[in-house]
């Protein structure tokens, strides 16, 4: 494998994880992104001489962290001439070792909770999660949600600055705050799934993104096994609600033939692979979609649920655009009952 291919592969497969670790250590999204890019550039220069390290993720994280700290120190030095009274250096973990950096666990979950913080407006949360966690470019997100690229880029920059300046934590929220934070996170995860589900079937990376959405959903399910919101209305297994869309053949589309884009379609579960249905309750990833669509009809097992959800998804996705008349994702009620 060439060095370039190796760097590309590590970046593609571990980008979100590395970014999460760097965000945690540096306390700043923009700085973390720059540091990661710089580390990759450094790898392209160094690895042809030194060979590909055994632990490329650790190597990139160490270089990225050191570079990030360098930049922070330089910025502080520049400001020291005016002697800033107190400086947020973000060096909460200055002495962190390489092993500890890699071993921060799956920080992607804390990253997604930060990206979905209620202090950010919903469009900013979705855009930020898609960019930071999933790795879409500002242009791709802008096209997906039919907003101008500069508008979206500005939205992202503003959100990242607010996270840094307002002291939004980089932690998974403590237990007593988890439920209220969860519904917003689930909506974003669901939107990522539906969005990439509609993506070009020829592009293999979109399959990975879909898998990423499912993985994030599953991770939340594992973290909160007692939280019915994470599970689907008729799921008996650990996989979150939308994972039923997974067995669908790549490239199979739903929605009107010939149409494409976010308004044309949503996920339709492969009914043949679905476990035996129970009556749908309001407690699931599916519920907010139905709530947002105003679809209060109780769906019968094996009914046209997929079609209803399709319509609901369409409204949800549309709600992210600039012309949303009201925030579609503002449901608050939590029905705990799973039985009817």
């Amino acid at each position, binding site marked *: 494998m060439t060095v370039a291919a190796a760097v590309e592969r590590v970046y593609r497969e571990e980008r979100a994880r590395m970014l999460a670790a760097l965000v945690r250590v540096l306390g700043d999204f923009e700085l973390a992104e720059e540091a990661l890019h710089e580390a990759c550039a450094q790898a392209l220069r160094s690895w042809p001489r030194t060979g590909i390290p055994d632990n490329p993720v650790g190597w990139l994280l160490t270089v990225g962290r050191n570079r990030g700290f360098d930049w922070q120190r330089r910025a502080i030095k520049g*400001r020291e001439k*005016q*002697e*800033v*009274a*107190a*400086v*947020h250096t973000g060096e909460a973990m200055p002495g962190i070792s390489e092993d500890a950096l890699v071993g921060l666990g799956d920080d992607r979950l804390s990253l997604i909770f930060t990206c979905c*913080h*209620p*202090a950010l407006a919903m469009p900013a949360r979705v855009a930020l999660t898609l960019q930071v966690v999933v790795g879409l470019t500002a242009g791709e997100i802008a096209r997906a949600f039919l907003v101008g690229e500069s508008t979206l880029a500005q939205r992202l920059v503003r959100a990242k600055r607010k996270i840094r*300046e*307002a*002291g*939004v*934590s980089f932690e998974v*929220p403590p237990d007593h*705050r988890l439920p209220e934070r969860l519904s917003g996170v689930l909506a974003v995860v669901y939107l990522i799934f539906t969005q990439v589900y509609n993506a070009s079937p020829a592009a293999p990376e979109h399959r990975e993104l879909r898998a990423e959405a499912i993985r994030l959903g599953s991770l939340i399910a594992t973290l909160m096994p007692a939280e019915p919101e994470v599970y689907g209305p008729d799921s008996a297994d650990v996989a979150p609600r939308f994972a039923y869309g997974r067995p669908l053949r790549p490239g199979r589309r739903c929605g009107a033939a010939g149409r494409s884009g976010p308004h044309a379609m949503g996920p339709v579960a492969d009914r043949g692979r679905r476990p035996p249905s129970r009556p749908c309750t309001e407690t699931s990833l599916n519920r907010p979609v139905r709530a947002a669509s105003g679809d209060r009809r109780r769906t019968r097992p094996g009914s046209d649920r997929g079609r209803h959800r399709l319509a609901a998804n369409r409204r949800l996705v549309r709600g992210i655009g600039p012309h949303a008349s009201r925030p579609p994702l503002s449901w608050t009620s939590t029905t705990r009952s799973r039985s009817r």
Partner: protein
Amino acid sequence: MRYMLLIYGCNRPEPGDPGFAEALTRINAFVDECCRRGVYEAGDPLKTIETATTVRVRDGQALMTDGPFAETNEQLGGYYILDCKDLDEALELAAQCPMAMDGSIEVRPIAAAPRLT
């Protein structure tokens, strides 16, 4: 990080008004909670906006104007300064503040003031 909780648009009962004792008890309980957590730094109500005077210095001349007379719901009614762990704690306390039931509370991080040597 230090945060300022800016309180807008709530009616403040005066001594003698019905509900005054109850309001005071709730506010004191909130301040006690902030102190118990060790985040409390300062907090005061402000007199109504009719008492405000605005000062501007232009061409070396200090100009005083009566007011401004903002709408009631736009008036800054008071503030708290809390030194919290993160934004989440500040938001949690803002939600516990009795004035949030009535008006609204803007949570703003306090910036570090640059000083000359």
